[in-house]
């Protein structure tokens, strides 16, 4: 029942956006994304959450990773990305290369991200974070980071 409802939701959203995209020219419309679970080189993956707000040109995000700690708190941060649309919002399979800067509870950071949004709803990212801490730069990967996109 839950799966059927989810499929129906995806179908309705896709249909809605397909008609809107056909009518739209240049795209400055906003998509909100909620990222929920990422793979990791250890069993169990990483509980990493992000709320992202993006157009075809830029994307801003807030994220928290419950698998990593900066001091006593889970790693949290915010990023601002420049987005290069390989196939943008009007495509049924969107594909973006992104590069951005941000701040986290561990230190300043750089984000390099590839995002793919299928049927305007299912989002899969490949993300790399470079976090500058005293005396070194930490590279942290989110090999496949899965979530939902909500196109407005």
């Amino acid at each position: 029942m839950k799966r059927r409802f989810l499929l129906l939701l995806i179908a309705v959203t896709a249909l809605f956006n397909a008609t809107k995209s056909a009518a739209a020219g240049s795209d400055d419309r906003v998509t909100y994304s909620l990222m929920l679970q990422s793979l990791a080189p250890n069993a169990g993956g990483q509980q990493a959450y992000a709320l992202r707000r993006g157009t075809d040109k830029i994307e801003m995000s807030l994220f928290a990773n419950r698998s990593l700690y900066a001091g006593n708190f889970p790693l949290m941060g915010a990023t601002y990305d420049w987005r290069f649309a390989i196939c943008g919002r009007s495509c049924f399979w969107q594909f973006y290369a992104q590069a951005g800067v941000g701040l986290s509870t561990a230190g300043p950071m750089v984000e390099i991200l590839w995002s793919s949004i299928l049927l305007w709803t299912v989002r899969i990212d490949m993300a790399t974070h470079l976090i500058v801490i005293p005396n070194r730069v930490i590279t942290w990967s989110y090999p496949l980071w899965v979530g939902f996109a909500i196109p407005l």
Partner: protein
Amino acid sequence: MLQRLTKSCLLVAFFCAPRTYGASYSVLSSAGLMQQPTSHYYHFVYGGSGQAEFFEQKFLVRGSYLQRPKFEEAGFVDQDSGAFAFVGSQIAGNKIFGVTALIGGGRINGYIRATDEYYSSEDAPERSYSISGLSTALEASARWGSLHVAVNHQTFVGYVDREQLNAYVGWPYNFFLVNVGFTL
């Protein structure tokens, strides 16, 4: 006969391409750092790539090879290497400065071998791995005449089987490279 004809046609197409499709060919040498999935150390890597660009860098094809030097310590020697194939496009910039996005796949191989006689006599004197997967790269480049300089970040995500996927396991590799080469 047919095979020869096909080869000849391909050769003619290859050499005529610059005039027809605004194509150019580049050879690049690479040096930089690699981070493996289960390690937070950065390893030195080096390698090279060959690239064909068409339609004024709107479409490009690249093959590249990277390896890390052999590391020998405490009776063991180990090394990793990877080969990748990409298609890409310049997504921002002009003829001199640009940002290029590349996507493709590849394979990373590695081994650890016992060189010490004591360890060599054990059951497993050598262990190796080979992992195929998806690879993406984002590159900022500059060109002066035929000189081509680029700073590149490449991610490789190794294939996971169903059992690993159910356990949310992934195998990410990161490369931070400086590419220097010439356009022919």
